[in-house]
């Protein structure tokens, strides 16, 4: 099931200098910590001159779509899905 969230969240990240990529490790949402097991896909979206970084990650139970605004450095949890039909 897909759920649109669009809430600001706290994220712990690491920077991988080999891949040249910021990887989310843990996210804090609704009082809970979710430990990221895998970054499934990363891409960028342009909003005018502002670049938004989109991270599709999973903690093994759910998939999360995160957006990091490069101008404000805010993280937003855009949607979650558990892979079941709506």
């Amino acid at each position, binding site marked *: 099931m897909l759920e649109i969230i669009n809430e600001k969240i706290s994220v712990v990240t690491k920077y991988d200098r080999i891949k040249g990529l910021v990887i989310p490790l843990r996210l804090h949402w609704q009082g809970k910590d979710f430990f990221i097991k895998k970054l499934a896909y990363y891409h960028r979206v342009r909003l005018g001159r502002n670049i938004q970084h989109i991270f599709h990650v999973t903690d093994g139970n759910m998939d999360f779509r995160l957006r990091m605004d490069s101008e404000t450095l805010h993280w937003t949890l855009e949607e979650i899905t558990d892979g079941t039909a*709506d």
Partner: protein
Amino acid sequence: MELPINKNSPMIMHIDLNSCFATVEQQANMHLRGKPLVVAAYATPSGCVVSPSIEAKRYGIKVGMTVRDARLLYKDVIVRTPDPPLVRDVHIKFKKIFKDYSPNVYPRSIDEAIIDFSGMENYLNRTLGEIGKEIKQRLRNEIGEWISCSIGIGTNRFLAKTAASLKKPDGLEVITHNNLRDVYQKLTLIDLCGINKRFEARLNSSGIFTPIEFLDSPLPLLKNQVFQSVVGYYWYLRLRGWEIDDVIYARKSYGQDYALGKPTSDPHELAQIMMKLCEKMGRRLRKAEKAALGIHVACLYRDGTFWHRGRKFQTEMITTWELYRKALYVFNQQPERKIVAKLSISCYDLIPSKKSQISLFDVPQDKERKVSAALDAINDKYGDFVITPALMLGMKDLAIDRIAFGGVKELEDLYEN
């Protein structure tokens, strides 16, 4: 004189991402992998399926079905709507990989591309089959482990595409003069790319029922009787592996389509949609530094009927407002007002915008264009539709971002961004 089958080494590679929209969605969302999933234009029951996953195809779900029909075939099918930025990103990444192998890469659509290795025979120290295997591996390593593609290799684009469709998903097939007849033997006429039901009926009426019979048909039969045009000659060459489709067409128009989620005949609602389509079209037109002299409006009505009209004007159109005014003028020429299910607007007869003349008498036109340029600059900086005409207020979810089917020209805009 009869033309033989092309016996040259196959140097054209066709690459087709399998179930592109659905596979990309599964790549991004690991919990969707291995499950029947469809990407549909709308998630509503009447939404049209644009891409079923490989797993959904096993239940008989096909492109063009409604979500309702897909659920009849598999009730727990997962439905998602397209994510254009995600799919465009995959397209840019795969094109970048292909460019490592040949400077001649031609995207055919968002999920298909041709790599032309012609003239590179002396530089390739391995077979195209080996290169194909490497490309498959690189797509998995560099884009995502769930991404798979079918690759076809042939002496022309047609045979390469045919080869790519022989084994799906994840195939790699080569068609040469040695196996050409064997391949045709296993196919039907409508398996051939470019032959639809109507062409099949036309071929049938001339006694051609199989691809082998099509291949063995003499040129005069194809040219004078079946197709009654030069198209028959093109097919004669194409089927024998000679290249006829390596044509790059110049852009002649800019256009936008919108299939209405809720068909309507309300003039205000349709005017709003027209304004948004004109704004999108105008932004692309102005970015290319073009102006248009003609405008074309087409309506597909809910009852299945169709109306369209194009008009050329003496003054060129550059701004959204100019395009909208002329589009509305053409739109209002409909003989009767019916419920519109799909609206298309395009502008044609393009000229460089720098050549356009400012009217001596129509001073507001100059002001309008300056305002339009300023608005474009603001939207370039802060994002599309940050400033819009008032008519577009409250229509954020209407005429949303989409990827055109087979839109090769649309991809040009993508590479420029």
